[in-house]
C-alpha cells in the first residue's frame, strides 16, 4: 500500500505538468453567447448507485442515454428517454477497465472505447458483443511499467490508450488512437484495416497529432479530430487526407457533429483537469460551429455548480438544440437545452 501511495502521488504530480495557460485560451473574438438551461435531475441512477467520472455519454434513436463512466470499476449504464435507469451493460466484461468514450451508431449499436484495456467494443442495441477491435494486454505478462522512452511503433490492430470512435455513411470505422499512437485509423465495416494518418511520433504538421482525444464524422465522411495537445481541431477527408485546421476555439478536448440535413459541429474548450490556477477564467466553454469552421456561438463556463462545467469530456449532439455533456470532475451528466440566439455569425 505504501508503494501505491507514493506512486499515485507521483502520478498526481505529473498531471500538473501542463501547457502554459495562454495556449488554453480560445482566440476567437466577439463570439455571441448562446443562452441555455440545464435540465434538473436529468438522470436518475438506481438507489445506492453512483456515477463516477462521466467520461462517455451518447444517446440512441429512441432518446435513451448511455453513460460509460469510471466508477470504482468502469461501468456502462443505459437510461430511458425520461432519465430513468434501464440496465447495466457489460458488467464484468473483459474489455472494461478505464472508460473513455461511448458512441451509438446509426443502427443503435453501442460502441465503447476503453483506454485501460485498449479495446473498442461494438454492442448490439440489446447489449450483446458484436465486434471487438484491439486487444487487452495479456495479464500473464504482468504489470507493465509505464513506458518512459519513445512510444512503440503502432500496429494495425492494436491500440494504445484509444480515445474515440466514429463511422461514415458506408459504415467504415474510424478510431482516434490516442494517448501514445497519435493517429487516426480507418477500418472497413468488418473491422479490417484500411488506412491510418499520424503515427506514434507526435507532431504539429497537418496530418500529425499530439493526443487525438476525440473524433466525429459528418454525412460526407469527413473526419473531425480533437487534437488536444496541439490546441486545435483537424479536419480529414474520408481517406484521412488533411483538409483544414480550426485553431481558434481553444484546446481540442472533444467534438460532436449533429444529425439531420444541416449538420453542426460542437467543440469543447474544456477546463483542464486539476483546475489549474487561472484556468477557469479562460476555458470551459463549448462552441457551436458550421462544419466549415464558422463560429455561430458559445455556451457554458467552468464551475463546480450545476449548470457550469467541470472538465467536459464528451458531448452528445444528436439534436443540435439538446446537448448532453459528461463531465470528469463533477461526475455529472447534464442535458442542456439551447435557446434561440440573435443570428450574428462570426466568420473565422
Amino acid at each position, binding site marked *: 500500500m505504501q508503494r501505491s501511495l507514493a506512486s499515485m502521488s507521483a*502520478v498526481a504530480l505529473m498531471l500538473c505538468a501542463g501547457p502554459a495557460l495562454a495556449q488554453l485560451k480560445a482566440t476567437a473574438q466577439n463570439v455571441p453567447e448562446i443562452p441555455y438551461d440545464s435540465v434538473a435531475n436529468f438522470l436518475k441512477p438506481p438507489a445506492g448507485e453512483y456515477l463516477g467520472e462521466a467520461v462517455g455519454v451518447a444517446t440512441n434513436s429512441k432518446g435513451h442515454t448511455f453513460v460509460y463512466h469510471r466508477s470504482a470499476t468502469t461501468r456502462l449504464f443505459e437510461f430511458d428517454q425520461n432519465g430513468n435507469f434501464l440496465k447495466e451493460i457489460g458488467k464484468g466484461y473483459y474489455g472494461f*477497465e478505464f472508460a473513455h468514450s461511448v458512441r451509438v451508431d446509426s443502427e443503435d449499436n453501442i460502441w465503447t472505447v476503453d483506454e485501460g484495456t485498449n479495446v473498442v467494443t461494438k454492442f448490439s442495441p440489446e447489449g450483446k458483443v458484436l465486434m471487438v477491435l484491439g486487444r487487452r494486454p495479456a495479464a500473464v505478462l504482468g504489470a507493465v511499467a509505464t513506458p518512459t522512452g519513445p512510444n512503440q511503433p503502432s500496429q494495425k490492430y492494436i491500440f494504445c490508450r484509444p480515445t474515440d470512435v466514429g463511422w461514415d455513411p458506408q459504415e467504415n470505422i474510424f478510431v482516434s488512437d490516442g494517448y501514445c499512437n497519435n493517429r487516426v485509423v480507418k477500418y472497413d465495416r468488418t473491422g479490417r484495416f484500411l488506412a491510418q494518418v499520424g503515427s506514434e511520433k507526435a507532431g504539429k504538421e497537418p496530418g500529425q497529432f499530439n493526443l487525438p482525444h476525440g473524433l466525429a464524422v459528418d454525412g460526407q465522411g469527413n473526419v473531425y479530430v480533437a487534437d488536444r495537445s496541439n490546441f486545435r481541431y483537424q479536419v480529414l477527408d474520408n481517406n484521412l487526407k488533411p483538409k483544414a485546421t480550426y485553431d481558434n476555439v481553444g484546446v481540442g478536448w472533444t467534438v460532436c457533429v449533429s444529425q439531420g440535413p444541416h449538420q453542426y459541429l460542437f467543440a469543447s474548450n474544456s477546463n483542464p483537469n486539476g483546475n489549474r490556477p487561472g484556468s477557469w477564467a479562460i476555458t470551459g466553454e463549448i462552441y457551436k460551429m458550421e462544419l466549415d469552421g464558422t463560429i455561430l456561438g458559445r455556451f457554458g463556463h467552468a*464551475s463546480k455548480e450545476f449548470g457550469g462545467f467541470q472538465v467536459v469530456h464528451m458531448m452528445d449532439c444528436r439534436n443540435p438544440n439538446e446537448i448532453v455533456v459528461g463531465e470528469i470532475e463533477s461526475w455529472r451528466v447534464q442535458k442542456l437545452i439551447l435557446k434561440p440566439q440573435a443570428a450574428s455569425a462570426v466568420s473565422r
Partner: protein
Amino acid sequence: MKRFLPLLLTATFLGALPATAQTPVPEIAFESAPNPLALPDDIYLGETAGVATNSKGDVFVYTRTGHPTVSLGGARAFAHGGSRLFQFDRNGKFVREIGQGIYGFMYAQQVRVDPQDNIWIVDQMTNYVMKFDPEGGVAMLLGRKAEAITVPAPPSRGPQAFGGGAPGAGEQTDLFDRPTDVAWDGAGNIYVSDGLGNARVAKFNKNGVFIKSWGAKGTEQGNFGTASGIAVDARGNVYVADRGNKRMQVFDSEGNFKTQFTNVGAPQAICITPGQNQFLYSSNSNPTNDIDTAGEIYKMRLDGSVVGKFGRAGKLPKEFGTVNAIDCRNENSLYVGEIGNMGVQKLTLH
C-alpha cells in the same frame, strides 16, 4: 515525493511523545459504552479513520475495510476499493451504507458533518474531499483521483515541490496530496488540511471556488510538519493539528498566524464543540506501532489552556489505539474513531 515519505514516517514515530507537563493536568473520569454500534453480521469495521454525528444523532463511520485492489490495464494499473461509509442511528442501529462502489473511496481518512447535515469525507489516497447531501447523493467534489498507478513506482522527483513553490505548499487549487480533514466557517467557506503529502491549508468558498492556501513543509510558524486535522471555531479562527511539529496552530480565517499550543503532545485528531462556550478536544494519539506511549485526549479552552485529559493507549475499552477522529457535537458525550483497534468508542465524560 518518495523523499517525503521517510520524513513523514519518522515524524509519525517520534511525534507521539508525552506532552510536556508544566503543571499537573487533571484527569477527567469517563466511561466507554459497550458495543456502541450494532453491525450486521456481514459487515466489519476496519481501521476507523473517521467518525461523526449529524444533528439527529446519527453516526457516520468512514473506515478502511474490504479489499484495496489493483487491476492491470495496458501500460497502467488501476486501483480501487478499500474503504466504506456507514450510517448508524443514535442508538447504534445500522441504517445504511453510503457510497458503495464509488470512485472516490480508497483509503479512508476522515468524515465530518456540516451544519446542514451534509456528510463530507476525506480520502487520503484518491485525494478527494467529497460532499454528500443528507440523502447520500454527491453534492460537490474537491480534488481528483490519479487516473492510474505505475508499477513499479516511478523514480523520485527529488525535492521539487508540487506546483513549483515551496515544498508542500501545493498548487493554488484543489489538487490535494494526502488530505486529512475538512471544516467550515459560519459563511460556509471550506477549509481543508492538506495534509500528509502537502503541508498546507486550502480555503474554498461554499461553491468550491479556490480562494487561497497557506503553509508549506517546515517548522516555522505558519508552516507544518504535517497538517493532520482541522477545526474552525464560531469566530472563524482555524485550528490546525500540526502533528509533525507536535503543536496546534491557530490562524484567523485569512490564514494569518495567531498563536500555537505546544502543551498537548502531537495532535492527530481535533474537534471543537458547537455553541457559544466552546471547548477544544485534541488527541495525542499513540503511534500505530506502540501502545506504551501517549494516547491521551485533552480537553482545552480555545485559548489553549487545558481543562483536563483522559484515556491512554491500549487494547481494552477506555484505552485508545491511535485515535484519528473525535466527534464532540455533545461536549460530554464523544465518539472516537481508532485506527489500531479498528473500531469506534462512545465516551461519556464525568
